[in-house]
């Protein structure tokens, strides 16, 4: 039978594929919001988090807030300020990217099967999703030329890693201090990236990384 966790994960996978295929910035931002929401919800549906402490509840609310609301808003403002509609010429075309995404899923399924993982009883799909998201993020960063798309890729990478973390660690999240830290870093990181994006845009009237190839040997 289909459990809720599976639904969440499938949506996440779809979001990865969509992000690979979509050319519009706005669409990408929305997809990221969706993905963030899914990723932040996913752990709750795992049975090992069935019983939550107060900090737990608070933490997951906060995470939802950051991943699904704050960061997308940041991106949204950035995109509007930058005022670019679409990724004009990516290094890898959209159809190719889509195919690559599918390949990525296959690869991660393969990896998952070949990893002898003690703790993930039924959550193999979780791991597949995680690795795909991770890879998808890296792929975006390598294949897109707009700086902003790379930020999005980085976020996807973080999501993937977070999923891997939730999938693998059987450590009972006694105190969430550490996770707060991670989240904080993520947030500040995206902020700083936003600032730099803004400056890039102001300097070059564009956020294309093609302008950022002065420094070389």
């Amino acid at each position, binding site marked *: 039978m289909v459990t809720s966790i599976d639904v969440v994960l499938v949506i996440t996978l779809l979001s990865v594929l969509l992000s690979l295929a979509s050319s519009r910035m706005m669409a990408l931002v929305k997809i990221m919001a969706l993905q963030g929401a899914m990723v932040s919800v996913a752990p709750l549906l795992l049975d090992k988090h069935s019983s939550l402490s107060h900090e737990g509840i608070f933490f997951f609310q906060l995470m939802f807030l950051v991943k699904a609301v704050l960061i997308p808003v940041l991106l949204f403002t950035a995109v509007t300020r930058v005022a670019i509609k679409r990724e004009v010429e990516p290094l890898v075309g959209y159809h190719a990217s889509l195919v690559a995404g599918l390949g990525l899923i296959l690869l991660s399924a393969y990896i998952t099967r070949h990893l002898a993982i003690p703790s993930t009883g039924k959550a193999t799909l979780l791991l597949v999703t995680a690795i795909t998201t991770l890879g998808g993020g890296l792929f975006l960063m390598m294949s897109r030329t707009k700086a902003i798309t790379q930020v999005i890729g980085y976020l996807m990478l973080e999501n993937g890693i977070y999923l891997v973390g939730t999938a693998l660690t059987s450590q009972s999240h006694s105190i969430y201090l550490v996770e707060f830290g991670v989240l904080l870093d993520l947030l500040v990181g995206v902020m700083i990236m936003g600032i730099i994006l803004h400056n890039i845009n102001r300097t070059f009237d564009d956020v294309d*990384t093609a302008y950022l190839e*002065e420094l070389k040997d």
Partner: protein
Amino acid sequence: MELLLTALGLILAGGLAPLPLLRRPACARIVHLVLLTAGCLAGLAALIRTWGQGIAPVFSCTWLHTLPLSLALDSLSAVFLVPVFLLAPVIALYGYHYLDRKAPVWQAGAHLFCFSLLTAAMVLVTLADNLPAFAMAWELMSLSSYLLVLYDHEHEESRKAATLYLLFTQTGALLLFIAFGLLFQATGTFAFAQWSQAPHAIKLAAFFLALAGFGSKAGILPLHIWLPHAHPAAPSHVSALMSGVMIKMGVYGLLRFYFLIDDPAPILGRTVLGLGMVSGVLGVVYALGKNDIKRLLAYSSIENIGIVLIGCGLGMVGIASGNQTMTAFGFAGGLLHMFNHALFKSLLFMGAGAVIQQTGCRHLDQLGGLMRRMPVTARTFLTGSVAIAGLPPLNGFVSEFLIYFAAFQGVRLNGPDGLLAMAAIIALALIGGLASACFTRVAGLVFLGEPRRPLPATVTEAGLSMRAAMIVLVLACLSIGLWPEPFIRLALNGLSDLALPAASQPALLGSLPGNLALATRIFLAVLLLLALCRHFIYRAKPIAQATTWGCGFTRPTARIQYTGTSYAREMVEFHRPFVKIHTTCGPISQIFPRPVRYASKVDDWAEIGLRRLLVAPILLIADKLRWIQHGHIQLYIGYIVLTIAVLLLTV
């Protein structure tokens, strides 16, 4: 042993004390000179006091809580310390008038300091008794000499030369450290004394690494490339110190290493002997080919290192084949020649320095007739030339004679050793002949004949301290030539504390030193007799002056004199395969030809080889590899992903 440490302290003080006085150069130099001399005299006193008393520990401590540093004095160190202590003050004395006083303050200070540091470092190298101490001393030596070469830093080529030197010396040092590390790994101790327990294979590997390392310092072909560049670049007295004393540290290291691994394999001696012959012959051939007087002297240093190595190589072969006499004479000859070369090569560099300082010209074919302008320099240089050509009655001959003698002992041996010994004799004969050709060329072209271009009136005799230094060295050369016995015994004494007690017996020498002295004295007696007769005959004879007989050519000018290039041409061409001669000469056209430019230069195959086979490829590859860093951030992230992929395969 406190005395020796005091000496070190004084020498270093000689470097530090002048620094506050730099505003008054003369004063600073005097302080430097006095302290340095005092230190060296103290050192000599220490040597005399402990002469022949076996191995004496000097100093030891733990460095950085882990590395033991220990210094010890034994006979071999003592023999190599003598030239250091003797020459450093003389050369400093020369430097007193040689260095220009207009140099910036910091430059002069750095120079004086590095000079003392180099002296001290050489002392430390000879005393070092374990790995860390040796490494430290060795690197200090490299550093100070590098900075000394850099003295004339305004000139592009002297910067290039210094960099080249730094590279070679660092390469050598690192090779040495690998060699030491191998032995350390095999024996588990830093102390030199225990390294003879290492397994044979390790010893061999280490020896050849060390040979390369020390060879690059000593200037053995084909690792000599830095030498002919660094010496012309450095101030002359620095060249004198480096060429006369410092490169001997390479030989010292080689001998020390050979004795401490104490390995009977004959291949060691044969290799050293072979390298010695190659360096000797090719060194002097290149020297013949060069026109820059200091570069020429540099190549002749390579030649003399070759002779020293022939001696030591014969000694090693003697050890391997159990021939005591050969061992004794080989090493004695090698060590004595090391000492002699220190004397006359410094002398020659000083002479060259005086000439360059006065005329501002270092090209043989543009000098000449300086005998009248600078009589003292000329006479000392001439003496030095006779000495370095290895001719009696001067010191060069004594050491070469001992080496010949060892080689003749070796002729008796069968197999490759015998053949090598014969080859050594022929090589020595060839070197002797070529060397005398080479130095008649230098002395003749620079000091004799007529000036090839008009000399400015400012060209006069060198400064007082410079003359004094040169005269001192001449006297040293003469005394060794005329009273060889004590010096031969001194050289032989170098072996007394080493693994071969039998070979260090003076009895092996027999009456030879005495006879040698006798022969030279007989010759001098005959010479004196003839001189008297000549004087007698010439009494009341008409002595007329005239121009040189131009063989019918009515309007001779100074410029038609035979040039150094053409003097050496045939001899250099005779060694064609090893020497590259480039000649550029415009065509002679028309009935009344225009003046054509003729230029020829002799190249060093080792240098060309290095350029073609090593430097050029590396630079090419480096250029090709630079695209790694070409700006695309996507690519950079790609590197990371790729690395992950590769590494995950290793799990």
